């Protein structure tokens, strides 16, 4: 009889099976994930959750009998039936259930529901998305160092004991100090044994005995392994280059931006943040809001406080340029910027905006996305035809001139995911700007 405690065994034994299952059902799960994420609040978009996929894609078929033919059922709990009684067939066929169920999985079920973890959910959701240019790496303070082998040391933990090196030292020391080998001692003993009892060799035996005594003493004095032989493998911390990113959120907060529009923008920023976090170890966020002047603010102020004033987009870009120059040298940081606006800009500022963007901002950025938020059904209002906004026209011209800029219009929450996916779809980021 044995009692074993298995609770401490590493968990996640079935993880490989799960991964195989997810891979197998990938297209189905991915679809389900997208459906699920479209329905849920974006703030919880990065949580795992239950998804449901159609069963047919992951069925394990086996031979079993269909309906029809003659069947027997033996059932318990007879109340009033007598032999020969006839009973109307219960609706739905089954014939009283029992004895003949088909698939063990329950053939009637048409959806398979299970729970995805946050990681799985996101990796499926972001699976075919790609961050453009995430190449810049540099050494950051406080990042986890990587440990590299660096020779041997005389102290260390037993786990790092280097046996070959220790034994080598031991061997050379034993040779240098002439520690008798076991064979030599044995040879002496054998010789003594051979000569013993023969009076003619008595003297020789005495000599040999003395020699043996000396050898044994020496063996005892010179240890086989001495503490000075012991060597440990040494490791040295080497700072690891880390890819780090900073994300600039630029937003127009002038009176024309409603709470709804801000909410749309916020959703987009959240997605971008999640996405960046998955690819970079360090992601910092800078919030810059602007009316006719721009300032860097914290998140709370950014989304919730109201400002009045005109609209000068160039001020935000100017502010961003300053922050970049101050704190985020483009050589060390991967810079991502997302601008949200309703498209208004003061007449005459467009030129300045375009110049700033092309000359300083875009060269420093890995990626620059412009999201134009609007009210739902806006383009449908009769008598109020809205052509492209000022900002849109400005940016479109830039894109047509080949600037690496992505732009999209969003009017409703449900469009956020598709737009995001389109902006970051693998390959061809900038082509997405034509909508």
């Amino acid at each position, binding site marked *: 009889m044995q009692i074993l*405690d298995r*609770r401490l065994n590493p968990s996640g034994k079935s993880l490989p*099976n799960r991964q195989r299952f997810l891979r197998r059902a990938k297209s189905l799960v991915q679809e389900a994930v997208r459906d699920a994420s479209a329905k849920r609040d974006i703030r919880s978009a990065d949580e795992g959750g239950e998804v449901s996929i159609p069963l047919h894609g992951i069925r394990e078929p086996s031979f079993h009998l269909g309906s029809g033919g003659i069947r*027997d059922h033996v059932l318990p709990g007879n*109340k009033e039936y007598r032999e020969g009684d006839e009973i109307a067939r219960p609706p739905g066929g089954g014939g009283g259930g029992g004895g003949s169920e088909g698939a063990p999985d329950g053939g009637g079920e048409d959806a398979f529901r299970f729970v995805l973890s946050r990681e799985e959910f996101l990796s499926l959701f972001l699976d075919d998305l790609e961050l453009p240019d995430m190449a810049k790496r540099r050494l950051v303070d406080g990042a986890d160092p990587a440990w590299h082998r660096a020779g041997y040391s005389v102290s260390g933990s037993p786990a790092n004991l280097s046996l070959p090196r220790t034994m080598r030292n031991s061997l050379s020391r034993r040779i240098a100090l002439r520690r008798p080998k076991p064979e030599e001692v044995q040879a002496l003993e054998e010789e003594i044994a051979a000569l013993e009892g023969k009076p003619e060799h008595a003297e020789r035996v005495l000599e040999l005995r003395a020699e043996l005594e000396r050898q044994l003493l020496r063996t005892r004095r010179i240890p086989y392994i001495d503490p000075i032989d012991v060597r440990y493998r040494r490791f040295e911390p080497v700072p690891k280059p880390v890819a780090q990113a900073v994300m600039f959120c630029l937003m127009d907060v002038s009176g024309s931006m409603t709470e709804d529009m801000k909410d749309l923008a916020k959703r987009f920023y959240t997605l971008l943040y999640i996405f960046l976090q998955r690819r970079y170890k360090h992601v910092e966020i800078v919030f810059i809001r602007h009316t006719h002047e721009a300032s860097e603010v914290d998140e709370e102020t950014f989304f919730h406080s109201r400002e009045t004033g005109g609209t000068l987009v160039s001020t935000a870009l100017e502010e961003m340029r300053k922050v970049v120059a101050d704190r985020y040298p483009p050589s060390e940081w991967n810079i991502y910027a997302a601008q949200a606006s309703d498209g208004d800009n003061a007449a005459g500022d467009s030129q300045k905006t375009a110049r700033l963007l092309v000359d300083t901002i875009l060269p420093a950025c890995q990626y620059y996305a412009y999201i134009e938020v609007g009210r739902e059904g806006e383009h449908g209002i009769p008598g109020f035809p809205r052509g492209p906004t000022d900002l849109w026209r400005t940016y479109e011209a830039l894109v047509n001139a080949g600037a690496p800029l992505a732009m999209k219009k969003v009017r409703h929450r449900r469009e956020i995911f598709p737009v995001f996916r389109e902006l970051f779809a693998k390959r061809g980021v900038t082509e997405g700007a034509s909508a």
Partner: protein
Amino acid sequence: MNIVTRPKDLLLYEGADWNFDTLMRIHDACEEVAGRELGLDWYPNRIEVISAEQMLDAYASTGLPLFYRHWSFGKHFAQHEALYRKGLRGLAYEIVINSDPCVSYVMEENTATMQALVIAHAAFGHNHFFKNNELFRQWTDAKGILDYLEFGRGYVQSCEEQHGEMAVERVLDSAHALMNYGVHRHRRRAPDLMSEQKRERERREHDEQMFNVLWSTLPEKAAQPTARGEEERRRALLQLPQENLLYFLEKSAPRLAPWQREILRIVRNVAQYFYPQRQTKMMNEGCATYTHHRILNRLHQQGRISDGAMLEVLHSHSSVIMQPDFDDPRYSGMNPYALGFAMMEDIERICREPTEEDRAWFPDFAGCGDPMPVLRHGWAEFRDESFILQFLSPALMRKLRLFHILDDSAQPVLRVDAMHDERGYRRLRRALARQYDPAWTDPDIQVVDVDLGGDRKLILEHRVVHGRLLEEQEARQVLRHLASLWSYDVLLREVDPASGASLREHAVSPPR
């Protein structure tokens, strides 16, 4: 009964908490009763304490502790997990593995009383059954199973490394679809699971020299009159008809690589290992339930578990053996625990205080006084089907109020064919026994021929019983898997065994 004072120190444990010493004491107490009073004979026990997640793990791989990797286990895990998390389903208190030593997994969440129940149930009841039942003795190798699973897992993994996960997955998918048809029902080769590894190497060498009739390119003799004899010879060579489809494919599928054959073999051996379980589910649970009932009652009588604990035992026990009536919404077939336990208790009753009827029906043991030899004999020599045929008494049929319904889809109504009365007992018993006979409940599908002269089409036959045809959609899916292993066309004929007429045919070509 004289009043026994029950000093506190007799108790094995108090309250719900337990530790390893408690488990040890419980085990030893159970062992004493199981050995001295019930005369059970078991493999050495190994009790492993596991967490809920590990229990889910074990669920997913059908209770085996180590298994090769396959997506379907991940699927089952996800399914169980979702149900468990929502609280729709509790977890089993234990899982027991037919191995030597016999491994019982017990959950850490169980109370001390539940642990006592589980140990008596699994570590002695199931364990005794595994060790003594003829089916298990004949078909499974308790000593070798853990080693074999280890080998299987390693082999599949090395195949994945060599041939890629996808290729291995395809073979496993197909093999799993045919798993129920990977069982030898009649013949029995001496089990030799320990030397599988060596055998696998030898197979590869052997294959190179093997003569496979399928590849024979010698011109056929023109003589027509011998066609009959020719067919006989071919069938004999391919060992046809063959009901073990996986075995047939492993030996004769023309285009499988050696590693694919080996995987088929692994799946087949696992299926074979589970084959007795399916046939003895009811008895096995009955044996274990009866054992825990006897042991715990005795421990209570001896004052070694408290009255409160006994109430907890009775509560679990009675919910386990609950059998809802057929018209109850909770009804989902015969509860194997209920029927098994009822039969064991009934046998005890017949041995101790038989009625005249019992004496007439069971002359050889009615009134013999000691039920244990009768039960031990029953547990050793029977399977569910034959056990019911042999031991189900009229008294029990009346008690359960069993009745037999004949459901003929050609008739507009169901008919009550037999019930618990003098005229019906024997027919009722036969009908119930049949429900536990896989030969009766599983469709009988065999490989009957291979068209060697033509396009190597594989021909299978489903011998239709009582006009019950296969479920068509699913049958086609399975046949597709079969065809992908066979690599040529496959034809499944559903025939009426009486007239030989073909009722339906399914033809499937291998995926290109």
